[in-house]
C-alpha cells in the first residue's frame, strides 16, 4: 500500500455492494435533477421560450421536479448517514487499532470523508450519465398526451447543480459519522466488544422530542387559528414562500418527533407481534427500538417520497378542486361556447398553442362562418391574447385578454365579472371609453398599490401606455387581467384576428339547435376550429395538471426505489452487525425460518413506519398548501381555508395510496434475499464470523 488514500479504495472495495448501493441512491437523485433540466429545455424548445401559460406550467413543473430530485437526494443523504454511521460502528476495532498505531484523529476523519466523497462521486457520475436519457424519456412519455416535445439538452447549470447537491449532501451526511470515527479511542482495539450494549431510549422530555412537539403545536395553532392564506397573495409571491417555509418547519418538527413516536409505536405493536408472530415478532419489535436514529433515518427515506406524493396531490387538488372548482361555478352559470384555433381539451398538448399568439389566432374564414351561423341568436365576444408582463396574472408570464365591446357589456352581471373593488357602473364607463383601461386581479392591484380610477403604465406593441384601472376582480376561471376595447391599437397588431370567438346565447334562443350548428364548424374546418363548452374550459385546466401528476407519480416511484436501495443497504449492514446474535439464536434453537421472519418483519415494519411518517408529513403539507396559499390571488378572498384544508386530504390520499402499500412491500421483498443469506451459514459462522467453514467457503467460491 503506497499511501493512506489507498486504504480508502481498499475499504470501498471490501464493501463493494454497500458502496454501490449508497452510490445508486445518490445517482437517482442526481439523475432526477439532471433530467429535470433536460425536460425543461426540451419543452421550452418546442413551447416557444416558455412564455405564457405554457411557460407558467413548465416552470411550476420544473420546480416540482427539481424539488423531487432534491427530496430524493435528501433521502439519499439520510441513507448515506446510516451507511457511514454503521460502517464506523462496524469498523470500530479497526479504527481503534489504527489510532493505536498512531493515526491522528484528523487522519481518521479524512479517511471516512474521502470514502464518502468517492462514494458520492461514483453516484454523481452515474446520475449524470442517466440524467440525459431519463429526461428524454419523460419528454417522450408526454407524447401519450398528444404533446410532441423537442430534444432536450443537458445544460451546464443543471450539471453543476446536480454535482453540487450530489457531492454536498454526501459530504454533509458523512460528517457526523466521520467525527464519531475520529473520537474512537485506541483502547477499543484492545477490548472485547461489549455484548450487552445499552438500548437507547428516547424520552418524551428529551429536548429534541419536546422541541418537535412544541414547534408542531405552535405551527398548527397558527395555521388553524389565523391561516396566513387569508392575507398572503401572489405579489410578492408570499403564498409560495410561506408554503415552502411552513412546509420545511413542519418537516423538521416531524423529524424531531419521529424517534419518540416510533418507539411508542413499537411499544404499542409489540404485544400484537408477540401474540401473532411469536418470538420472531417480539424480537423484531425489540430490534426496531434499539437504534431510534437509524430507524428514523431509514423510515424517513421512504417517508420523503411518500410525503411529496401526498402533499403535491393535495396542492394540485387545492388548485383544481377548490380554487378552480369554486370559480368555475360562476363561469358555468354563463354557459356558452368558445371557438379556438386549437383543441383546448387536449390537456398538456394545448399548452403549446395556448399563449403562442401566432399559433392561436383564428382563421378569418372561421370567424366569417361563425358569424353567419350565429346571426342574431347570440351575443358575440371576440378576445385577443396579449402578453404584457406587468399586469400578467396569476403570474407575470400569464397572458392578459383584450375584449370587444359586447363582451365588456356583459360585465353588468356579477356572475360574468366578479367585481371585488370599485363601483360596477363606473367600471363599465371606464372600460367603454376610448383609450386604454383594464381590470385586474387583487394581486396585481396590490403589486402596483392601485384601485379603481388609478393608472398603470403597461408595455404595449409601440411602447409604454398609461392604462386606467376600471376595476379589480375576476373573469373566467383564472384571475387574469383584461384590457378594454379602446386599448386595441396599443396591444394588437394591425390585421390580426382574435384568438377566441365567444358565443353567448340570447335568453329566447333554442340552445340545442344553436349548439348543433356551432359544432358543425368543427367538421367544416378540421384543425382550424375547435368548439369548447364552459365545463370543457374548466376541464382543460384540470386535465393539464392531472396529466402532469401522472409523470410526477412516476418520478416518485423512483424516489421510493431509491429509498429501497438504501433500505437494502441498511438491512444488510444491520444483519452483519448482529451476526453474533443471529448465531446465538440459531444455537439456542431458532430455525432459519424464525430468524428470516424476524429480519423480514423488521424491514416491513420499517417500511410501514416510513409510510405512516410520510402520511403525517404529506397530509400536513396538503393542508398547509391550502392554508398558506389561500384564495386571494384567485379572487376568492372569502374562501373557507380550514374547510379547504380538510377537503384536499381525500384526493391527497387517493393519489398516494399505492405508495402506502408499495413501500412496506418493497421493504419486505428487499429484506428477503438478505435475510436468506444471513441464515445460510452454520451457527458457528455467525458466532465466529472471522472463520469461514470450508464447506460454505467452497460454496461461495463456486
Amino acid at each position, binding site marked *: 500500500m503506497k499511501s493512506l488514500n489507498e486504504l480508502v479504495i481498499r475499504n470501498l472495495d471490501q464493501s463493494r455492494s454497500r458502496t454501490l448501493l449508497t452510490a445508486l441512491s445518490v445517482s437517482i437523485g442526481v439523475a432526477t435533477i439532471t433530467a429535470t433540466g433536460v425536460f425543461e429545455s426540451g419543452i421550452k424548445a418546442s413551447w416557444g421560450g416558455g412564455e405564457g401559460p405554457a411557460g407558467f406550467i413548465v416552470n411550476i413543473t420544473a420546480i416540482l421536479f427539481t424539488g423531487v430530485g432534491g427530496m430524493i437526494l435528501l433521502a439519499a443523504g439520510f441513507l448515506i448517514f446510516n451507511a457511514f454511521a454503521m460502517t464506523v460502528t462496524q469498523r470500530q476495532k479497526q479504527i481503534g487499532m489504527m489510532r493505536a498505531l498512531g493515526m491522528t484523529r484528523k487522519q481518521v476523519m479524512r479517511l471516512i470523508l474521502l470514502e464518502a466523497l468517492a462514494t458520492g462521486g461514483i453516484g454523481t457520475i452515474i446520475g449524470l450519465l442517466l440524467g440525459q436519457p431519463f429526461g428524454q424519456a419523460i419528454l417522450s412519455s408526454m407524447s401519450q398526451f398528444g404533446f410532441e416535445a423537442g430534444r432536450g439538452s443537458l445544460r451546464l447549470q443543471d450539471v453543476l447543480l446536480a454535482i453540487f447537491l450530489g457531492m454536498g449532501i454526501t459530504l454533509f451526511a458523512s460528517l457526523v459519522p466521520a467525527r464519531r470515527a475520529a473520537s474512537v479511542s485506541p483502547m477499543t482495539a484492545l477490548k472485547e466488544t461489549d455484548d450487552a450494549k*445499552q438500548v437507547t431510549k428516547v424520552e418524551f422530555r428529551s429536548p429534541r422530542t419536546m422541541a418537535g412537539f412544541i414547534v408542531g403545536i405552535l405551527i398548527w395553532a397558527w395555521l388553524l387559528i389565523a391561516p396566513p392564506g387569508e392575507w398572503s397573495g401572489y405579489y410578492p409571491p408570499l403564498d409560495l414562500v410561506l408554503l415552502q417555509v411552513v412546509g420545511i418547519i413542519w418537516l423538521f418538527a416531524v423529524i424531531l418527533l419521529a424517534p419518540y413516536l416510533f418507539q411508542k409505536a413499537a411499544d404499542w405493536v409489540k404485544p400484537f407481534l408477540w401474540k401473532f408472530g411469536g418470538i420472531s415478532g417480539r*424480537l423484531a419489535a425489540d*430490534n426496531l427500538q434499539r437504534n431510534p436514529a437509524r430507524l428514523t433515518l431509514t423510515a424517513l427515506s421512504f417517508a420523503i417520497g411518500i410525503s411529496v406524493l401526498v402533499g403535491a396531490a393535495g396542492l394540485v387538488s387545492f388548485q383544481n378542486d377548490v380554487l378552480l372548482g369554486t370559480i368555475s361555478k360562476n363561469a358555468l352559470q354563463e354557459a356558452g361556447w368558445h371557438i379556438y384555433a386549437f383543441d383546448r381539451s387536449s390537456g398538456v398538448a394545448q399548452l403549446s398553442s395556448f399563449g403562442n399568439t401566432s399559433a392561436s389566432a383564428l382563421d378569418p374564414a372561421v370567424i366569417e362562418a361563425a358569424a353567419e351561423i350565429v346571426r342574431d341568436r347570440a351575443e358575440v365576444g371576440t378576445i385577443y391574447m396579449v402578453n404584457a408582463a406587468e399586469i400578467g396574472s396569476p403570474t407575470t408570464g400569464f397572458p392578459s385578454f383584450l375584449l370587444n365591446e359586447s363582451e365588456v357589456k356583459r360585465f353588468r352581471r356579477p356572475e360574468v365579472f366578479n367585481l371585488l373593488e370599485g363601483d360596477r357602473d363606473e367600471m363599465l364607463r371606464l372600460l367603454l371609453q376610448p383609450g386604454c383601461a383594464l381590470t385586474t386581479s387583487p394581486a396585481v392591484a396590490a403589486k402596483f398599490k392601485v384601485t379603481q380610477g388609478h393608472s398603470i403604465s403597461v408595455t404595449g406593441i409601440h411602447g409604454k401606455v398609461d392604462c386606467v384601472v376600471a376595476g379589480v376582480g375576476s373573469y373566467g376561471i383564472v384571475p387574469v387581467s383584461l384590457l378594454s376595447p379602446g386599448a386595441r391599437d396599443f396591444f394588437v397588431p394591425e390585421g390580426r384576428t382574435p384568438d377566441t370567438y365567444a358565443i353567448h346565447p340570447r335568453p329566447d334562443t333554442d340552445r340545442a339547435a344553436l349548439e348543433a350548428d356551432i359544432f358543425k364548424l368543427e367538421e367544416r374546418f378540421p384543425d382550424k376550429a375547435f368548439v369548447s363548452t364552459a365545463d370543457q374550459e374548466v376541464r382543460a385546466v384540470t386535465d393539464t395538471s392531472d396529466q402532469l401528476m401522472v409523470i410526477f407519480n412516476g418520478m416518485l416511484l423512483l424516489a421510493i426505489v431509491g429509498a429501497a436501495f438504501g433500505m437494502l443497504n441498511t438491512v444488510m449492514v444491520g444483519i452483519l452487525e448482529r451476526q453474533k446474535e443471529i448465531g*446465538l439464536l440459531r444455537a439456542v*434453537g431458532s430455525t432459519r425460518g424464525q430468524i428470516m421472519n424476524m429480519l423480514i418483519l423488521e424491514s416491513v415494519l420499517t417500511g410501514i413506519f416510513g409510510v405512516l411518517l410520510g402520511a403525517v408529513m404529506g397530509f400536513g403539507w396538503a393542508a398547509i398548501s391550502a392554508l398558506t396559499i389561500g384564495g386571494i390571488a384567485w379572487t376568492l378572498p372569502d374562501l373557507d381555508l380550514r374547510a379547504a384544508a380538510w377537503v384536499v386530504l381525500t384526493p391527497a390520499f387517493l393519489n398516494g395510496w399505492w405508495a402506502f402499500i408499495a413501500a412496506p412491500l418493497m421493504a419486505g421483498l428487499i429484506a428477503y434475499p438478505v435475510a436468506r443469506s444471513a441464515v445460510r451459514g452454520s451457527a458457528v459462522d455467525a458466532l465466529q464470523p*472471522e472463520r469461514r*467453514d470450508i464447506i460454505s467457503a467452497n460454496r461461495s467460491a463456486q
Partner: protein
Amino acid sequence: MSILHATQLNKEYQMGEVTVHALRGVDFVVNKGEFIAIMGASGSGKSTLLHLLGGLDSPSDGEVMLAGKRLAQLNDNDLTIIRRREIGFIFQFFNLLPTLSAAENIALPLLIDGKRIGDYAAKVDEVLTLVGLADRKDHRPHQLSGGQQQRVAIARALVTDPAIILADEPTGNLDSASGGEILKILRHACDEKEQTIIMVTHDEHAAKYADRIARLKDGMIDAQS
C-alpha cells in the same frame, strides 16, 4: 450409558488462505450424568469439538451420535429442534440479547419453541433462584455485571432441562470468584439433575470441578484422566 458418541471426527476449515485441520480422527464417548472438561492449548481444536458435539457445526468426516440419533442424518430443522430441546449452550462471551430482560433472555429457548412465557414463569423463577439472580429478573444485560450475565446465560441453558450442557470457556471472561460460582452451579446441575456437562476450558482450576478431563493436542485426543 453413553449419551454422546463421536467416532473418527475430522474437521477442516478455511482461515484466509490456509486450510486448518482442527480435528484429526477424534473418538469421544460421554456417559449420561458425566461432567467432562476438555482442555488443551489454544488452537488445539477443543471449541471445534464442542461445536460438532452440539450439532452447531458439521464434521468434514466422521459422525456424532446424540441420544441414539446420528446428527449427520438429520436435516437442519431436526438438528435445530435437538439443539433447542436436548442441548443447552453456554458461551465465553455471554451472548445475551440486549433488548430482553434477564428473565426473558432465560426464557428465550422456550419462546423460540413457541411456548408461552406465562406458563413457564415458575420454571424461569426456579433457575433464576438457582443461579442466585431472583432479584435481578427484570434487569437488562447492561445493568448486570459480567458474572451475573454469565449466570443468566447458564440459567438460559438450564431452563429447558436439557440432557446435555455444552459450555465453551464459561469462566474465561470472569474473575476467579465469579468463575467459582459458575462452576458450582454446573456441578450442582450435574449432581442433582443428572445432566451431562461438557466444558471446554484451559483453566486447570476450573477443570477440577469435572469428573473427567480430556486433553486435546493438535486436533487429537492426547490423554484422558
